[in-house]
């Protein structure tokens, strides 16, 4: 009996928590099919008529931004996962002079806050002629993601049984082939997690694209939505529809990589 109550308590706790996590989605959805009067004067009402045209209007404005965000977030994720995967393997398995100092150089940046970087990064992006291009976002996102993910990757590579890699050596596989055909499949969950994480961070980033992406047709959804909120004052219905649309790609991505995402970290002890 006692045991059942405890078990029930745990489930109740998690279900309530889950519902609380869902509330913004629910509010967004119900506001997105109403017009301003219905929202302001009848916030809870769902009596209709439903204004599905909000979605048509929102789609027109939001769809180009989604593409921009996908390119920037996807590009960052792919490059980052490749770079940090390589480095994780290099630092975790290979031997070379200066390995430790180099690793510490990267690792230390994890402890160093990035706030000082905004303005000089902006100037650097400008001098490198990157402003207003997707690369302004991609390259800096990859750079910013390295310290943490190199650290994680190295932990995971070190956690793999040594014999595995040794046997590959006997086969005479080149180091890169060992990495590609042995390490990558083994590390797939954490690699996927890393890619998803970088993707989501770029997808949600606001300040950096705000200052670097100036062209109207290259704006990602974050700055784009904030912009729509100021240009469509009071049009809450279409705005919310826009928010809903902007969330869809992440939901799709999540359902594709869900298993890796929720289990990606279980293979190693990530800690300090």
């Amino acid at each position, binding site marked *: 009996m006692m045991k059942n109550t405890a078990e029930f308590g745990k489930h109740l706790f998690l279900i309530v928590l889950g519902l609380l996590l869902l509330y913004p989605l629910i509010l967004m959805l119900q506001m997105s099919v109403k017009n301003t009067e219905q929202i302001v004067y009848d916030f809870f009402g769902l009596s209709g008529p439903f204004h599905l045209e909000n979605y048509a209007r929102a789609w027109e404005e939001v769809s180009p931004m989604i593409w921009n965000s996908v390119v920037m977030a996807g590009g960052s994720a792919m490059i980052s996962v490749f770079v940090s995967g390589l480095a994780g393997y*290099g630092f975790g398995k*290979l031997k070379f002079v200066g390995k430790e100092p180099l690793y510490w150089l990267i690792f230390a940046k994890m402890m160093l806050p990035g706030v000082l970087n905004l303005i*000089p990064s902006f100037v*650097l992006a400008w001098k490198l002629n990157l402003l207003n291009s997707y690369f302004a976002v991609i390259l800096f996102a990859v750079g910013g993601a390295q310290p943490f993910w190199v650290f994680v990757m190295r932990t995971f590579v070190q956690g793999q049984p040594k014999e595995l890699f040794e046997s590959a050596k006997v086969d005479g596989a080149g180091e890169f082939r060992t990495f590609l055909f042995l390490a990558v499949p083994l590390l797939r969950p954490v690699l996927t997690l890393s890619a998803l994480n970088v993707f989501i961070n770029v997808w949600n980033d*606001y300040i950096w694209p705000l200052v670097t992406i100036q062209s109207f047709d290259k704006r990602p959804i*974050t700055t784009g939505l904030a912009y729509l909120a100021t240009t469509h004052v009071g049009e809450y219905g279409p705005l919310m529809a826009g928010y809903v649309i902007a969330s869809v790609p992440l939901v799709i991505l999540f359902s594709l990589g869900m298993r890796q995402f929720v289990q990606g970290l279980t293979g190693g002890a*990530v800690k300090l």
Partner: protein
Amino acid sequence: MSALAAVTSKKKAARFVGYAFVLPAVLFTAIFDYFPMLDGIWHSFYRWNGNNIEIFVGLGNFKEILSDSVFWTSVRNMLFFLVCNIVLMLPTLVASIVLFRIKHSRWQYAYRVLMCIPMFIPGIVIMLLWQFLYNPQYGFLNQLLASWGLENLQQLWLGDPAMVKWCLVFIGFPWIGSIALLIYLAGLQNLDSSIWDAAAIDGASPLQRALSIEIPLLKGQFKLNLISVLAGAVTGYNLQLVVTNGGPGFSTTVPGLYMYQHAFGSVNADYGYASAVGLLLFLIALLISLLSMKFIRSEE
């Protein structure tokens, strides 16, 4: 070619292979993380508008910042958010322990998926949504109170300097950090299951178990998450920038926003001054990180 020479050259090649593997990451970190940081330190001693004005001012920027009461207000506000954010690491920790104790693997998986939801709604959407909900004249919260006949409980929310900070903190409700949760969970699952069996025999209560076993074992993970929370709270300003722009008055101005406002969109734009603010923040964040590392020792 002798066998020995072949081995040596292979070893040499192997050494180079090592560099090839780590070079991209080193370069990315050096160019896009370290270079801007050093450049920022350099320019914090200049009055610099990014274009034609670049005048060396020595410690002038720092003197001006430290004598500006707005900066100190922003530091106080930052400390408020810092404390809140540290306390609010608790829900994630609790959730991860409860989640870990669900032994039914299907359910556990389903809940894990549920806990990852906050990551998939763009943060900006939540902020803009709350900005609407908080509006005192036509927002959701005051309407809700009115519909319950509780007009006397209606608030100004973001318009009330005494309340606005709490309003901002509440935007994170229910304060579940998905990545942090996954890190804790992975930590618990990696432990030897014999520990749990021993605990079960002991007959410790769930809370005792959490305090005596799980939490101590998660120290390393906690430290990792703590660092990102600390850095985020000391240097972050996304929320303040989007929702209140630091107001009303200076009640939600944080140092990061103070820096941002001095660099972008101000008639008196000064990147040098802003860089100096950045350097100060950097030092504060570093100091706090180091202190917290000293106080929490992880198990090796």
